[in-house]
């Protein structure tokens, strides 16, 4: 009946190297079609319930698409509150990967207490901001700007991350501090990667996602009748990379590491740390823009809207067509469809790796660095 969807990756070895990378996905990329004919409020309620890891980003992107369709503009305070919730999800997701997956990938035990503390610190933000539970109201719900509680939650998350890393996360993403940390402690994953000489592992041509998304995104989604684009997106034949490395490539630490290691494994791991540090910083900034506001009351919504969110794993796009408050068409394009495309960034990264005894481990590291949102198996063929 039901099973977790997933991605399987086959590495075909020829002449001592990876000659082909075969990606098969059972992800349900056209699931949003079932939102058709439902009232918009029901779909907004379903979005965070249906998606396990990125429910907040999915709900916020859906809400923004519906507001665009109806030509509604949320207030700056509402936009700040929503961005804060998306950043909280991003910080939580990166924190979970770093606490749970990185130690395991380095051959150690997951640090689940830290993962739990980070999740716990930020889990209550939604009900602090929207105590009446109407966070998904088009135009904005009843917003409460309890900045003391919000800042205390962010501070608690920051402290948990500092305990996990053994260093203040804000300082850690300064190039000099990062280098010193790498050399001081080879026990954590980035230190191990450096010590093994894998900093540049998987470096390949870089096609970062444009900041505002692919230029043909709106037209391609509007004309994607069979769902082929949602399953295997491209832009004039190019498959962009989205996520932490693409988004933070301009950051001084990432620029410094990419100068030396290209798009290799170490810059990819460091980009996750940058996303974590910058996410916390942005949350603190957004908390200053909050204002207490009443909820909006709106008539039936009609029109067509497309909205983009930089979610934990990269660019997320929702397109909706509304007719008097009911969904006529709903489409979702998720970041994993770019990063795990059969001709995309993961394939570019794995292709040509030498078939030495560490190949499977290296492939697991590179897959984790690109961060699929579903379980992923790797087989050597």
């Amino acid at each position, binding site marked *: *009946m*039901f*099973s*977790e*969807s997933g991605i399987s990756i086959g590495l075909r070895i020829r002449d001592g190297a990876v000659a082909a990378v075969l990606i098969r996905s*059972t*992800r*349900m*990329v*056209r*699931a949003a*079609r*079932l939102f058709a004919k439902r009232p918009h409020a029901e779909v907004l309620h*379903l979005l965070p*319930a*249906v*998606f*396990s*890891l*990125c*429910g907040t980003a999915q709900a916020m992107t859906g809400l923004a698409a519906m507001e665009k369709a109806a030509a509604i503009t949320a207030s700056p305070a509402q936009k700040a509150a929503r961005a804060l919730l998306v950043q909280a999800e991003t910080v939580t997701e990166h924190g*979970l990967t770093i606490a*749970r997956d990185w130690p395991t990938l380095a051959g150690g035990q997951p640090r*689940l207490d830290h*993962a*739990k503390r980070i*999740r716990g610190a930020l889990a209550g933000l939604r009900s602090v901001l929207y105590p009446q539970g109407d966070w998904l109201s088009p135009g904005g719900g009843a917003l409460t700007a309890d900045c003391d509680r919000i800042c205390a939650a962010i501070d608690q998350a920051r402290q948990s991350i500092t305990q996990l890393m053994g260093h203040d996360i804000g300082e850690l993403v300064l190039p000099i501090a990062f280098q010193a940390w790498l050399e001081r402690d080879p026990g954590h994953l980035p230190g191990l990667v450096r010590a093994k000489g894998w900093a540049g592992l998987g470096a390949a041509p870089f096609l970062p996602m444009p900041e505002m998304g692919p230029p043909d995104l709106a037209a391609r989604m509007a004309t994607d009748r069979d769902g082929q684009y949602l399953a295997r997106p491209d832009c004039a034949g190019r498959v962009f990379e989205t996520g932490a490395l693409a988004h933070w490539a301009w950051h001084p630490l990432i620029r410094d590491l990419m100068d030396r290691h290209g798009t290799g494994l170490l810059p990819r791991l460091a980009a996750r740390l940058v996303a974590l540090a910058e996410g916390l910083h942005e949350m603190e900034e957004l908390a200053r823009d909050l204002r207490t506001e009443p909820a909006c009351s709106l008539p039936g919504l009609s029109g067509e809207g497309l909205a983009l969110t930089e979610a934990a794993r990269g660019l997320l796009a929702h397109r909706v067509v509304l007719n008097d408050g009911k969904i006529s068409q709903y489409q*979702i394009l*998720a970041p*994993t469809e770019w990063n795990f495309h059969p001709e995309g960034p993961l394939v570019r990264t794995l292709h040509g790796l030498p078939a030495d005894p560490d190949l499977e481990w290296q492939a697991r590291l590179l897959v984790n660095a690109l961060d699929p*949102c*579903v*379980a992923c198996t790797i087989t050597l063929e």
Partner: protein
Amino acid sequence: MCLALPSRVVALLDDDQAKVDLGGVTKAISLALVEDVAVGDYVIVHVGYALTKVDPVEAEKTLALFAQMAAAGEPA
């Protein structure tokens, strides 16, 4: 997409583990990231870890939607 399939806890095991049921398939998962989970609760599972507890009424609604997706031809 990373669908949140609610699984029902059918037994609590040692070492913060539990046995869950999803559509008739049972498997062992970790409860290390959640608190106060009891037999009969629904949890969202991802790569072997329960991530959140879900209200049973909401869980039933979500499962009904996934059943419609499966019936419409999408693998769930």
